[in-house]
């Protein structure tokens, strides 16, 4: 049986890789990929805690399902935005998308 802490270490490492990807990449789609990795790390934690502390209820798994749902909705809208921005500006480099700056 694998101890709980291993899963938590894995999730922490995955989350940090996701943070790095989301903050350091120039392309907006790559940023979104980093965010998906972070959400997955959260899911690993949710399911690991369900498995090791909360077997009587399904809360951990239920939460993970809802996180996946939200991730799907987020990807839909996020990627639609990116496509539209690309169509108008011919770039999806997040550093050049600063029209809102005063």
């Amino acid at each position, binding site marked *: *049986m*694998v101890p709980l*802490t*291993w*899963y*938590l*270490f*894995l999730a922490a*490492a*995955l*989350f*940090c*890789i*996701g*943070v*790095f990807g989301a*903050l*350091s990449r*120039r*392309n907006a*789609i*790559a940023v*979104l*990929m*980093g965010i*998906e*990795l972070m959400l*997955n790390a959260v*899911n*690993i934690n949710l*399911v*690991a805690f369900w*498995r*090791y*502390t*909360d*077997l009587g209820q*399904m809360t951990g*798994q*239920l939460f993970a399902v*809802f996180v*996946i*749902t*939200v*991730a*799907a*909705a987020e*990807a*839909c*809208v996020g*990627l*639609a935005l990116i*496509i*539209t921005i*690309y*169509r108008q500006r*011919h*770039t999806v480099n*997040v*550093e050049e998308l600063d029209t809102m700056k005063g």
Partner: protein
Amino acid sequence: MQQVAFAVLSLITLGAAIMVVTTPSLLRSALWLILAFFGIAGIFVLLNADFLAITQILVYIGAISTLMIFAVMLSSKVMDPHQPRFNEQWGLVGGFSALLFVALAAIVSRVVWPVAQGEVPVDTIQRLGADFVGPYVIPFEIASVLLVVAMIGAIIIARERE
């Protein structure tokens, strides 16, 4: 045996995740992302959450990754691998991420987690289904509304205007 499986799966997941954030070609990033999702599905199986594993494959690999690959191909000129993949602050961000990991790892290893032993119920899927329409009915209905709103919004945004 389980430890070996865990080690292999986490190596796959973490290796693929690192490739996701460092590969210059966006399409290859997306393919590495699929491998990472697959590794995570394996981790879910190890945690006896088989329904979530299949959800992971169905939604992340089947749907979200396809969406991402489409988006990459639709904004194709940015796939030019010669332009820098990182922004200027990537060194700083890398340091921050490493620090974050050290902090999280310290917390994880210090805290004594209250682990409860028990048998995994065999009817997890029935219980999930019962919970969706039972105590979690509000999130369940909101999930449907959220999905539809996201779809409508995305259609309005992405539609080509004549």
